[in-house]
């Protein structure tokens, strides 16, 4: 599959879309709930996947994980503005503290997937998942924002993710 994609074969692209578009769309919608916007993001994501396929390293993991991350970061970029994630200037950090615990997104889809699971978490876990996964803050930024040590952020976030995973035993 990857080889075929790298050879720019249209059949490979078609296969990829058919198999993963709805799954990735679901991931996107949890961050970008507006269906019109989420569709645009989905297109943008597939274009990126196609054009950046040379950067995919099979040794680092599955193709889906790589595509998932492109979907997630593109969604965050769309919500926050393209350069927000890479920006060094985080003086607006305290301002961004306000949209916490999923309240920032208009009509977040709470009833399915990851978002539903997140809501069942304890507050101290929920906030970390919200800030890192859904809003794209780095762990050191979160530590600063919440005024807690980086080590605490790490261990709590990891614990939160473990809990999330345990909720869905497949």
């Amino acid at each position, binding site marked *: *599959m990857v080889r075929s994609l790298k*050879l720019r074969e249209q*059949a490979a*692209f078609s296969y990829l879309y058919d198999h993963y578009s*709805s*799954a990735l769309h679901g991931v996107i919608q949890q961050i970008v709930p507006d269906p019109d916007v989420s*569709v645009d993001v989905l297109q943008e994501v597939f274009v990126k996947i196609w054009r950046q396929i040379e950067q995919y390293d099979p040794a680092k993991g599955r193709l889906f994980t790589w595509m*998932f991350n492109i979907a997630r970061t593109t969604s965050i970029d769309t919500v926050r503005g393209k350069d927000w994630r890479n920006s060094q200037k985080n003086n607006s950090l305290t301002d961004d503290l306000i949209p916490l615990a999923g309240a920032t997104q208009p009509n977040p889809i709470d009833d399915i997937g990851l978002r539903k699971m997140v809501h069942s978490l304890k507050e101290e876990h929920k906030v970390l998942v919200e800030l890192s996964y859904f809003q794209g803050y*780095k762990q050191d930024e979160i530590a600063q924002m919440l005024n807690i040590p980086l080590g605490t952020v790490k261990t709590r976030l990891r614990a939160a993710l473990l809990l999330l995973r345990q909720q869905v035993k497949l």
Partner: protein
Amino acid sequence: MDIQAYIQSGVIESYVLGVADAQDVAELQRLRFEYPEVEAAIAACEAWLAATARAGAVPVSDKVKEQLQHTLQNEFAPAADTTATNPTSLLKRMNRVRYFAAASVILLVASATINVYLYQKYHQASKDYIALMNERNTVVADNGLYQTKLRQMQDRMQLMAAPGMLKVSMPGTPGKEGNLVTLFWDTNTKDVYVLANKLPKAPAGKQYQLWALVDGKPVDAGMLDDCTDLCQLKPVVKAQAFAITLENTGGSPTPHLDQLYVMGNVKS
């Protein structure tokens, strides 16, 4: 490092979900190659992610796909390459390789066969050549021998026809008429030569002996070997006649006259 604790810490989940920081990522990349259980845990987590995402899938209208293919139309490989689906083009490639492999093997076998055939031909030609060379050497040696013999015969002819050479014809004695020996006596040097024109081969253990008859008494003048070619025997100073008898090998001090074969008088 407690690998089980590492795996159960949730750091792998944070990595797969994309929220691990650079330090965590670097450590994980290092550990995954050292510990296969870490690699396995990463794979399991990724499988969980894919399944969860699928469970939360939201369908998209086909229009979107069309739009995408339109957007990317210039970025697809030329139609000729993509008409074949992945498995078929791979199969074609494999078949091509198999074809070439088979052709190569056939060529190799054919070449090897030709080599064996040519070698055998060469080997035979080599043997023939050696045989031919040996034959040639033999012919050359024989040729040399013949030349020597020829020279010898020429010399002998000169000798026999020289002035002062007395020819004594020795015909067969009664009962042995078919025999003939010619004796040549050089009156100057006193050398005696004998030519056996017709004389039976001496039986085993026997040998012909020449006698010079000097004043009625027989004197040993030498033993004959094969004198079909001119033989030189002992010099004789004086003789009125010559005779040859068959004696025991090595000769006899006196002739056995019942074994007389040829005899001839010296004509003065």
